[in-house]
């Protein structure tokens, strides 16, 4: 994302002189594989999705042009709004605490004299190398109604067993927990990297003014890592709104619909259900573009919000 830096650097290189054969095709051959792969499996399909969304397109049956009917149907489809709402709830529940915890953990890990530093860093990262499928199965067991560890603990403290899968908030909470568990450590390391490049002098002068650790965290650390916060917010928005595997696994056999009554079906799952279960390629493509729109809008909102919040602190 260091675009302007790249620009500056490479123009400096160019000033060095025409070492590389200017008119040679060689450099283009070297970068061609990326553009071929991206074009064939990325850019073209994305554009083609828009085209297909204008058809009643069944891969086995007929393809008929229907204009914007898929979108009209989509707006009138309660399953779409349900999935959109679930997606946003799961995304908020998983992203906000995740990034907040990651910020604090990074600050804790950033202490110069910390022991077992590498050990702790590796410990927080382990969840991230675990596959989404493994995460899904482990947490589905942990959140089990009858024998799950979480209910056992709740009961031990005098609470009631919860049927996590059945409820709509409880199931979304469980799915969010999986996302959070897998990504908190990763974001912690990203923040930690940013915090390590904050000049020590800033902290030292704050200490002379008598600032405590919390004050230093709020007035120095957070403003200094602001670009990184914005970066992680954008990445988590784009990724978090496409949550797919966690709810699929959590639903077991009813995974594709996100539970018996669609209580935790996300938009990515709804897309998969329509496209690859019901073979409604046109409708699925309309869902894809709707999700794309939601991602773009929420990314822009977040960008505005996070840059403002981070700069106020």
């Amino acid at each position, binding site marked *: 994302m260091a675009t302007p830096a*790249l620009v500056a650097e490479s123009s400096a290189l160019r000033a060095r002189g*025409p070492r590389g054969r200017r008119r040679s095709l060689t450099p*283009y051959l070297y970068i061609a594989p990326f553009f071929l792969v991206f074009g064939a*499996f990325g850019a073209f399909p994305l554009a083609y999705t828009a085209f297909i969304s204008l058809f009643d397109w069944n891969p086995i049956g007929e393809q008929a042009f229907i204009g914007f009917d898929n979108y009209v149907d989509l707006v009138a489809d309660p399953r779409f709004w349900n999935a959109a709402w679930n997606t946003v709830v799961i995304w908020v529940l998983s992203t906000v605490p995740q990034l907040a915890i990651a910020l604090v953990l990074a600050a*804790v890990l950033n202490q110069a004299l910390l022991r077992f530093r590498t050990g702790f860093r590796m410990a927080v990262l382990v969840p991230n190398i675990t596959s989404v*499928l493994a995460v899904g199965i482990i947490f589905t067991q942990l959140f089990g109604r009858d024998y799950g560890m979480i209910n056992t603990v709740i009961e031990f403290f005098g609470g009631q067993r919860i049927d996590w899968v059945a409820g709509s908030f409880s199931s979304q909470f469980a799915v969010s927990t999986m996302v959070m568990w897998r990504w908190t450590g990763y974001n912690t390391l990203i923040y930690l*990297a940013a915090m390590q490049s904050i000049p020590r002098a800033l902290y030292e002068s704050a*200490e002379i003014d008598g600032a405590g650790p919390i004050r230093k965290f709020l007035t120095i650390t957070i403003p200094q890592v602001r670009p990184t916060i914005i970066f992680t917010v954008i990445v988590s928005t784009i990724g978090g709104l496409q949550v797919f595997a966690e709810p699929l696994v959590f639903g077991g056999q009813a995974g594709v619909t996100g539970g018996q009554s669609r209580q935790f079906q996300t938009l990515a799952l709804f897309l998969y259900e329509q496209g690859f279960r019901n073979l409604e390629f046109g409708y699925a493509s309309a869902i894809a573009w709707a999700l794309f729109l939601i991602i773009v809008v929420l990314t822009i909102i977040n960008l505005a919000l996070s840059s403002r919040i981070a700069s106020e602190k």
Partner: protein
Amino acid sequence: MSRTIDLPTADVDESAPAAPPRAPRSAPAARRRRRRAHGRVGWFTYVVLGVTAFFSLFPLYWMFVVASNDSSAVNRVPPVVVPGAQFLDNAAQVFEAVPFWQNLANSFIVSIAIAIGQVLLSALAGFAFAKLDFPGRTALLVLVVGTMTVPLQLAVVPQFMIINELGWVNDLKALIVPGLVTAFGVFWMRQAIDNSLPDELVDAARIDGARNLRVFWSIALPSIRPAASVLGLFAFMTAWNDFFWPLIVLNSPGAFTVQVALRQLQSQAYVTDYGVQMAGIVLGTVPLLLIFVLLGRQIVGGIMEGALKS
């Protein structure tokens, strides 16, 4: 997206002059260490980190516990909390339910092919962006970086149609070819080559008559070995854990990768037996855990370095 990308970096640039280069930082820190006693890390920090480490590791520990016990032991109140002796029995049932050797082999083939392909092709492109001069270089590099923000999962319907046209459904090529080169890889390699390969060395090789490909192979590649291995590791792990795309393009059990086979195991069981499911995910996770135990330090370093670059 390029306009939005400018924002964060502008700030980095402002603060950059104030930031001392990495090495001298330890000197004032050491001085401070001597001067101020309360620079020491308090016990509370270790409690916080201990609790964090517990929550990070417990689910994985639990995976081993359930995988190695009889269902009845796990389904007791209070449940058993230590590993048992049933792992092989549970694992045997995994191999009965799905062709798991085949699935493991598929995952290895795909992940290794993608790791090698990504390292070589990304390095080649990175080399061109870092050391060769050609019209449109900057614009193309910006384009590469920009593609990282495109949610490609949304294009899955036509992606599947293309694979279908190519006749690659149930063929591992459907997984390998689209994963051969990534924007992240190109960017990563460009930075690595830019940082560790002096222009003088390239010029010297050129004067000796080396052609571009030769400079790439005998000078650029060896000079970026650490960065290349980190990228290879990332590529391997990402490919190994990939689930959505394999689920779309594979539909016969013999072609499944580990992740898809495990989903099959979960969703087709008439009776939920977590012992068997967990035995399956242990088998599917252990390769990555082994890599992590051996090379975790490099992986942690790679992620933190990647954060600074982007």
